């Protein structure tokens, strides 16, 4: 599958968390499977969206890609080189090429550092040879490129609103000129009128810098606007993976269909409800077979026993035994 265009490839990734107070022996405790055998590839220049509800493992996937979590098994390769088992030193060049934007603008900036200290730090660390004036010039250039006022530089984070902080976070990620940016729900904590501002900044950066994005979100309307390809996750597995247009034109996985129908629409229709009963199962006790069978209107006996593999159906990949019939 992998060709020269593939930037990031994730193969058979699993991540489990042990829920137990760590003790001398560390044994026992329950295991949560946050990611369950996920494989996907992100091509250069894409805005790859990962969609799902809370607890589906999308943020864990992002954090694992960035090396903030170590995978339980499976591999992550960047530009053809495996990076998940690298030590800190070997990984350093990749830290510069891959950056991240976080969800909570109120926690992602160090409250005790001025904006210029925050922005200078990654640059000085990765390019210690730069002179002070070069560093300052770069900070000003990046701040202006994301539409931030350079008078902010001497101030502290608490003086800014959520949207402004998020734009500062974006500037920090862009300081080292990365080629790949992971954005973990970057707009979900923001007000409606501010979400558009931040999305625009991210799209401008994509156009100017040829960025590749891995965009994590629960909001499908943003995906439709921002993404080029999209993977839908449910309880640690990918259920459907397709080009954005293909997916929105006709979702095949029953969960994608449910998600799409749940988006509130502004076309004057009234809220309809309760076709789907049941709750999201706990990631501690994953259901056997297809993880979605408990909520699925099409579930048959085979769904309770066999795990459906991701397979090509109608121009996309779907993990459903009955993908041919659900369209």
């Amino acid at each position, binding site marked *: 599958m992998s060709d020269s265009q593939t930037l990031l490839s994730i193969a058979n990734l699993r991540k489990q968390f042990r829920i137990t107070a760590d003790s001398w022996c560390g044994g026992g405790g329950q295991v949560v499977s946050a990611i369950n055998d996920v494989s996907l590839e992100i091509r250069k220049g894409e805005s790859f969206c990962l969609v799902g509800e809370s607890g589906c493992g999308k943020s864990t996937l992002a954090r694992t890609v960035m090396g903030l979590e170590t995978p339980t098994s499976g591999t992550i390769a960047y530009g053809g080189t495996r990076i998940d088992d690298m030590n800190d030193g070997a990984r350093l060049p990749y830290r510069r090429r891959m950056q991240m934007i976080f969800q909570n603008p109120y926690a992602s900036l160090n409250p005790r550092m001025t904006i210029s200290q925050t922005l200078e730090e990654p640059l000085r660390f990765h390019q210690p040879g730069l002179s002070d004036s070069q560093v300052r010039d770069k900070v000003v250039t990046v701040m202006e490129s994301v539409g931030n006022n350079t008078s902010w530089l001497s101030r502290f984070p608490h003086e800014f609103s959520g949207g402004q902080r998020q734009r500062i976070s974006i500037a920090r990620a862009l300081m080292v000129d990365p080629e790949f940016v992971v954005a973990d729900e970057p707009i979900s904590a923001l007000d409606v009128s501010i979400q*558009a501002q931040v999305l625009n900044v991210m*799209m401008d950066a994509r156009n100017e810098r040829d960025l590749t994005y891995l965009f994590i979100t629960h909001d499908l309307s943003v995906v439709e*606007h921002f993404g080029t390809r999209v993977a839908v996750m449910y309880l640690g597995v990918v259920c459907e993976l397709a080009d954005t247009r293909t997916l929105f034109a006709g979702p095949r996985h029953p969960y994608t269909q449910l998600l799409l129908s*749940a988006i509130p629409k502004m076309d004057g229709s*009234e809220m309809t409800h309760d076709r789907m009963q049941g709750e999201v199962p706990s990631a501690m006790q994953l259901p056997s077979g297809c993880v979605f069978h408990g909520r699925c209107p099409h579930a048959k006996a085979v769904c309770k026993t066999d795990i459906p593999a991701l397979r090509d159906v109608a121009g996309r990949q779907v993990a459903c035994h009955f993908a041919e019939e659900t369209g």
Partner: protein
Amino acid sequence: MALLEVRNLHVEFPLGRKTLQAIHGLSFALDKGERLGIVGESGAGKSVAAFSILKLIAKPGRIAAGEVIFDGRDLAKISDEEMRQIRGNRISMIFQDPMMTLNPVLTVGTQMVECLKAHRDISDAEAKRLAIAKLREVKIPSAEERFENYPHQLSGGMRQRVVIAIALLTDPAVIIADEPTTALDVTIQAEIMGLMLDLCRDHAVALMLITHDLAVVSQVTQKICVLYAGRLAEQGPTRSIITQPKHPYTQGLIKALPQQNEPGARLFQIPGTMPTLDDVPAGCAFHPRCAFADELCRREVPEPRPIGDHRVACHHAEKVASA
């Protein structure tokens, strides 16, 4: 006559050296069985408005002026004891976090029975029967079992259903719901919102839905009030607010939604941010972010005035509407 009418409500918070105006001259009316959406971003004062109707505003906040007429009485003037008889009985409240309503150390059943007996003179057995009936009404499977559960044994969506059941227990005339589904997942949100809509219709309960989500409001309510920096920006029938907004802020909010823009294109954006309450600009509070602003907007606060079936607080509403 309207069931609940708010007239020229002013709420303020004296803080240290200055007094913050959280709500400035808000008026709206809610008829029996009507569904009203209060829309605004964080800091717009929408929750303060709801809390002050129930006299639940946190100290040192207070109602500085205005009337809240419910059933012919002014809630702003009655005693705390009389207010207790109305709150949770004739007017119920649903919060964003179900754990604000539910006590973690009591079972769902205990709390429901307690709530009923506080407002009605009935036996335990009768209260239990009613409570389980309400749990069934909010589509909670195996209601008898859930009646014995503690809140932590329920999922987030299930808890919010229990809170809705409690809100409906005393057959209220009005339910005030403050961001009831914001903390929930998209699919659960759709279920809960749909459920609330059905229940309000079936029982002819008036609903005041406070939210930042225009799309949700458009699917549930009949009327909308849009707030900005503690003042009314625009008010009118839901359909017409969504399709023909006449205030530049409402217009911007709708145009900024991704689904209103061409996929992949730059989104329409309102520049700047909502002012904080201690730093509201002179004149129209929206003028620094507004494309239509001129000298008049910088100088004079626009009063809400009728335009068609809307009430709009904008000097240039006619121009905005035709833009």
